[in-house]
C-alpha cells in the first residue's frame, strides 16, 4: 500500500544521487525537522528541554564513535578522553584567549582530532583487541595528563568555567536557546556523517571494516584511512565535549572517564553498529534510560520498599539493566535498534501483502 519506490522516476543525475530520492522520505524528514525546530521547543518545558539537550549532545558523540567502530571496525575505548581534550581546548580558548564560541567549537574538535590521530597511530601495526587496549591506555594517559598538567587543567580544581556562549550579541542562556544551538550543531553533524558515507572516503572506511587485507590489495591506503577515521571520529568527540562544556558551564575531566567511553560504546551497540540512525536511537535510548528507570522504580518500588531502600535500589537496578540490555541486544538482536526499525519499515513497505 505504501509503495515507496514505485512511480519515482528520476530525470537527472542530481535527482538520482540525492540523499532522499523518495518523496515520502523527504516529507518525513521535513516534518521531523519542523517538529524538532519549531514545535517541540515551543511546547516543552525546561526539564524536557534539558533532557533533549543532553540526548542531542550524546547523539553527536555516538555518531563519532560509530564512524570509527561501526563503519571502520576499529574498536576505541578512548572516546571519553577525546571529548575531554575538546572540552578543555575550548575552555582554555574561551577563557584565556577570549575567543567566541564559533571559533572554540571547531578548534576543540580539531585539537581532539589531532590527539585522536596520535592515539590511533598504533593502528598501523596492531588491530582488533590490541588496538582497543591501546586506546584504553590512551584514555588513561590523557586523563592523567589533563589532571596533572596545571597549564591545561587551570589549577588545583582541574575545572574551568566557561562563560555563556554568545553568537553575535545574542547570549545563549536558557534551556530553549541552548536547545536551538545544540540542535543546529547536531543537525550539521548528522548531515555530514550521512554524506560522508556517500563519498569514497566513507566507502574506504567500510572496505577496511569488511576485510582490510583485501582493501589494501585493491589499492586503498589503509593506514591513511584508518588515521582519517580516528581523526574524524575524534573531531566529533571533541565537538561533543565542547557542547557539554558550554551546556554545563564548566569543563571537568571527571565527566569524561572510562565509564563515559563505555557508555558511548553501549549506545552504538544498542543502537546498531554501522548506521547513523542507529547512533541516534542508541544515544536517545541511553540518555533516557536512567530517567525513565528512576520514575518506574520510584513509582513501583514505593509500594514495596521504604523510600531509602528504593533510592538504593534505583541505581543498582540501573546498572544491572544497562548491562542486561547490552547483553540482550548482543545475543538477540546484534544489529540493534536500527534493525528493529528496519524490520518495521520493511513490514510496512509491502503491507498489506506479506512479501
Amino acid at each position, binding site marked *: 500500500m505504501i509503495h515507496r519506490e514505485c512511480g519515482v522516476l528520476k530525470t537527472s543525475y542530481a535527482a538520482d544521487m540525492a540523499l532522499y530520492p523518495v518523496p515520502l522520505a523527504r516529507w518525513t524528514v521535513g516534518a521531523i525537522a519542523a517538529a524538532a525546530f519549531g514545535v517541540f521547543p515551543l511546547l516543552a518545558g525546561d526539564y524536557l528541554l534539558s533532557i533533549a539537550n543532553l540526548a542531542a549532545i550524546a547523539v553527536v558523540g555516538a555518531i563519532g564513535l560509530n564512524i570509527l567502530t561501526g563503519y571502520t571496525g576499529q574498536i576505541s575505548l578512548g572516546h571519553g578522553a577525546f571529548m575531554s581534550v575538546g572540552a578543555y581546548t575550548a575552555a582554555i580558548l574561551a577563557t584565556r584567549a577570549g575567543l567566541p564560541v564559533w571559533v572554540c567549537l571547531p578548534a576543540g574538535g580539531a585539537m581532539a582530532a589531532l590527539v585522536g590521530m596520535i592515539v590511533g597511530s598504533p593502528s598501523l601495526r596492531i588491530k582488533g583487541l590490541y588496538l582497543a587496549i591501546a586506546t584504553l591506555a590512551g584514555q588513561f594517559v590523557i586523563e592523567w595528563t589533563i589532571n596533572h598538567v596545571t597549564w591545561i587543567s587551570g589549577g588545583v580544581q582541574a575545572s574551568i568555567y566557561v562563560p555563556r556562549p554568545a553568537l553575535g550579541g545574542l547570549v545563549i542562556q536558557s534551556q530553549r536557546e541552548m536547545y536551538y544551538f545544540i540542535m543546529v550543531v547536531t543537525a550539521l553533524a548528522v548531515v555530514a556523517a550521512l554524506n560522508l558515507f556517500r563519498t569514497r572516503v566513507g566507502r574506504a572506511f567500510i572496505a577496511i571494516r569488511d576485510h582490510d587485507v583485501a582493501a589494501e590489495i585493491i589499492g586503498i591506503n589503509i593506514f591513511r584511512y584508518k588515521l582519517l577515521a580516528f581523526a574524524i571520529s575524534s573531531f566529533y568527540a571533541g565537538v561533543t565535549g565542547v557542547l557539554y562544556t558550554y551546556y554545563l558551564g564548566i569543563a571537568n575531566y571527571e565527566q569524561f572517564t572510562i565509564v563515559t567511553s563505555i557508555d558511548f560504546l*553501549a549506545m552504538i551497540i544498542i543502537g546498531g553498529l554501522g548506521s547513523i540512525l542507529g547512533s541516534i536511537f542508541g544515544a536517545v535510548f541511553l540518555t533516557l534510560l536512567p530517567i525513565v528507570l528512576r520514575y518506574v522504580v520510584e513509582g513501583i518500588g514505593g509500594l514495596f520498599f521504604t523510600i531509602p531502600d528504593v533510592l538504593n535500589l534505583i541505581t543498582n537496578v540501573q546498572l544491572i539493566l544497562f548491562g542486561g540490555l547490552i547483553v540482550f541486544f548482543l545475543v538477540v538482536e546484534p544489529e540493534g535498534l536500527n534493525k528493529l526499525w528496519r524490520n518495521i519499515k520493511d513490514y510496512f513497505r509491502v503491507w498489506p501483502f506479506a512479501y
Partner: protein
Amino acid sequence: MDFFALLVVNGLLVGTLYSLIALGFVLIYKATDAINFAQGELVMIAGFFVAALIQLYRVPLAATVAIAVLAMMLLGFGIERVMLRPLIGRPVIAVIMATIGLAAILKGTGPLVWGAETKNLPLPIPEAPFLVNVLDVVVLVSPIQLVAAGVSLAFLAVFGYIFLRSRMGIAMRAVADSQQVAMAMGINVERYFALAWAMAGIVSALGGIIWGNLLGVDVHLALVGLKVFPVVILGGLDSIPGAVVGGLIVGVVEGVAAGYIDPYVGGGTKDFVPYLLMILALMVRPYGIFGKEIIERV
C-alpha cells in the same frame, strides 16, 4: 638503596597478586579466544560472597573456600551458557561488549544483594610485617603477600601442567586454535568453553579472597581488573607463565616508578606507567614476551 630494595620486593609480591587476576583472564582467552572485561567484577563477586559467608553465616575458613570455589565455578558455567555460547563465531567487539555488559550487571548485583558498605574479609594471617634480610638489605614483607605469591605460583604450576600435558588441556588449546577444525576432530567445543570459564571462576574465587582481605570488599574491588591489561599484554594474552612474568614486571615497574617519580610530578605515576609500558610493548612486540604470534594468511 634500602628504599629501592623495599620497592622492588614489594613490587614483586604485589606483582604475584596481579598475576592471580591475569591468570583468570588468560585462561579464558587461551581456551575460548574471548576477552573478558569482567575479570575484576568476578573477583569482586567472589569477594562479596566470601565476606558474607565468613561474617554473616560464620562458616569456617576451609568450608568457605570450598563453597566459594564451587559457587564461582557454577557462575562461570552459567555465564558461558547464557551469554557466550550464543556469541560463538561473532566478531571480537561483540564478545568485548558482552563482557562489559556482564561487568555492569555484576557491579549492580553485588551491592544490591550484599549491601553497599565496605566489608572486612578477615583471614587468619597476621597483619604485622616482618623484616627479612636480603643481601644485607632489610626489607619489610607482609605475610598476606607471601600467601598470595604462593597461591599464584601453585596455580601456575597446576594450570601449566594441565594445558601442557593433560588431555583436557590439549583439547582446549585445539579449540582456541581453530574451533571448526576442533569440532571436525570430534572435540566437544561447548564443553571445553564451559570448563575454561569454570577454571577462571576458581581462580577468581581465590583472587577474591586474597584481594578482599587486602583491600576490603565492596564495589570498587572490581577496579583491580583494569590492571589486568598491561599484565597480559606484556606477558602475552594466551600465556600462563606470561601472566606471572607480566605481573611481576608491572608490579616492580609500578612500585619503583611511583616511589621515585611521584614526588616530582605530584603523584599518580602508578596509574599510567603500566599503560606506557603497555604501549611500548604494543609497538615493539605486540604479542607479549611469551605470546604466540598470530600470522595472518590471506
